């Protein structure tokens, strides 16, 4: 599904990714772990197409197609979803209105008619139940005054609504208490299928107790320096990141 080859990227002439390789197939869950500043969020933003970063070398392919020239919304239309580490606030725009616009714009890009209101309503009802979201919450301004947990739950709710092929969860566990974490993880697990893939970016192993990864990668200094199965995450939890650094030296 996703194939990244020798990816180099920088921001303001500061090099952040230095030859990163990653392949994610449909039906897989990958976890990317690593110390602060390793480039985890940069990777997520680059896959989503944020303009601040300059890709200096390498290829990003989605389903065999090079997406590096596509605008962020075009990548989204192709099924890329990024759950933001810090979701932005848009005052005055309700969650419902926002998600309705997002779905219909995506449908428009695919040459489909707007989703009938009845279907939309049904879908909202289903997905909000899945994430234990209160109906009142849906009428509030997007992310404005939301607690950390509400913001993250809202991200996963949008993911559920948009049904992406590739979901990237950027530090979705940060700022969540244990109950919220369980709800979010439960939501993600239910949305998992053999046709889609999930990349979980996290600093801690905690979330991986709930979303079991097929692969765990360690990102350090702009490169993936170690890959393994779920047990690697436990090892990192126990030993910290320093042993990786030492191993590299």
């Amino acid at each position, binding site marked *: 599904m996703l194939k990244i080859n020798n990816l180099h990227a920088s921001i303001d002439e500061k090099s952040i990714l230095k030859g990163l390789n990653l392949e994610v197939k449909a039906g897989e869950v990958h976890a990317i772990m690593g110390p602060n500043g390793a480039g985890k969020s940069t990777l997520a933003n680059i896959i989503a197409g*944020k303009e*601040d970063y300059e890709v200096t070398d390498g290829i990003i392919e989605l389903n065999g197609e090079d997406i590096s020239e596509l605008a*962020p*919304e075009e990548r989204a239309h192709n099924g890329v979803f990024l759950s933001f580490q810090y979701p*932005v606030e*848009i005052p005055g725009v309700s969650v419902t*209105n926002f998600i309705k*616009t997002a779905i219909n714009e995506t449908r428009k890009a695919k040459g489909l008619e707007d989703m009938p209101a009845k279907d939309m309503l049904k879908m909202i009802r289903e997905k909000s139940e899945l994430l234990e979201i209160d109906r009142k919450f849906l009428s509030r301004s997007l992310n404005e005054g939301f607690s950390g947990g509400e913001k993250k739950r809202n991200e996963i709710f949008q993911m559920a609504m948009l049904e992406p092929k590739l979901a990237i969860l950027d530090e979705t566990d940060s700022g969540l208490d244990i109950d919220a974490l369980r709800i979010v993880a439960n939501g993600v697990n239910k949305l998992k299928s053999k046709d889609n893939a999930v990349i979980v970016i996290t600093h801690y192993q905690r979330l991986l107790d709930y979303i079991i990864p097929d692969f765990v990668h360690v990102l350090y200094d702009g490169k993936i320096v170690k890959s393994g199965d779920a047990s690697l995450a436990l090892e990192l939890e126990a030993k910290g990141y320093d042993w990786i650094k030492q191993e590299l030296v």
Partner: protein
Amino acid sequence: MKYTEEDLEQELKTKEYEYGFYTEIESETFAKGLNEDVVRAISLKKNEPKWMTDWRIEAFRVWEKMTEPDWANVNYEKPKFQDIAYYSAPKKKPKLNSLDEVDPELLDTFKRLGISLDEQKKLANVAVDIVMDSVSVATTFKKTLGEKGIIFMPISEAIQEHPELVRKYLGTVVPTTDNFYAALNSAVFSDGSFCYIPKGVRCPMELSTYFRINEGGTGQFERTLVVADKGSYVSYLEGCTAPSRDENQLHAAVVELIAMDDAEIKYSTVQNWYPGDKNGKGGVYNFVTKRGLCETNAKISWTQVETGSAITWKYPSCILKGNNSVGEFYSIAVTNHFQQADTGTKMIHLGKNTRSTIISKGISAGHSQNSYRGLVQINSRAENARNFSQCDSLLMGNACGAHTFPYIEVKNKSAQIEHEATTSKIGEEQLFYCNQRGIDTEKAIALIVNGFSKEVLNKLPMEFAVEAQKLLEISLEGSVG
């Protein structure tokens, strides 16, 4: 006949404003210039009673001694008042045979606003077929109102049919001496609307100038008088989201509202006069005086969406005379290209326990200048007066300006006044977030602007609000590269 996108584009290039704009109009027009004789002649033409003629003459004499104000934050070439023809009625727009004859840009806008074909015809002055006969609609309308004793007619008719009412209230809220443009309007006003809601009556429908009977062309000096008697309620809509192409450069309207004890008037405006072209050439000067008087427990609520005109100079105000009266002002002002808007409100608190709310949303794009100017005045006897004001500006691009000039004058210690103002732009982060969810930048801007304006849009009557949202979107097109 098929009308393809290419056709449209071609027409846009070559035939701008061919129709309805510079066309010779069959009308009776006085020579240019203004003097007492012209004022008399206007009055005579309209067959007005002597008191009305005298009233106009008095206004003219006042106007002659006044000078045009220049304190507003706008720059323009002053109109030449002796170069204007002050009487030209009945102003018939040219009748067109089919929509094919209508300015394609206008049609395009109609289409994007979602205005029905029949309505498009009516707005563009195309002969309307029997399916939607404006007269029959109007007749049904009139019958319903008549049963409730509501008077809703052109003010020229009201002067003939209800002289006692007009005479009693005309000029009581905006006196002829009030300001330069109000004095001019009083002397030469062509027509406008009169509305009277009897005691205790709740007007069952939105009163809209759009449906007004025998409309004689809105004219450049419109005069509106709305009287809501004790305990009555009316919601009044002025204007239309469709673009108004009017060859009159200067518009100086006066609107007076009177809300008697326990009455409520909700006055909503969508102003979409011709704003001039992308280079700032042409466009309407819109110098309006709007004011309402609230008696005890009365409430007046002004809501406006201002997207048109080259120059806007407009401060819908409330005089909160009665105890416990309430004044509200909700405004969205969008300026793009070279438009200039100086708009806001005055809330004059005279009575006890009076409350006012001001929510102003200014959106500036292109090379435009957008100013909020407001006065909150708490007089010494206005015990426990409350005001909350919020003025938010959104800037798009780096060639426009947003200005806030709030005046707060308080002479009573029990007053509670809160004023907040913020200025912001559409954040890159917000745009990226929307893009990531599949929403392109243009749509994202529309979404964010609508969110920014929501508190005001919510105050509009439902069907108006939907159109106003689309209007905002269209007004800001091309404002971000």
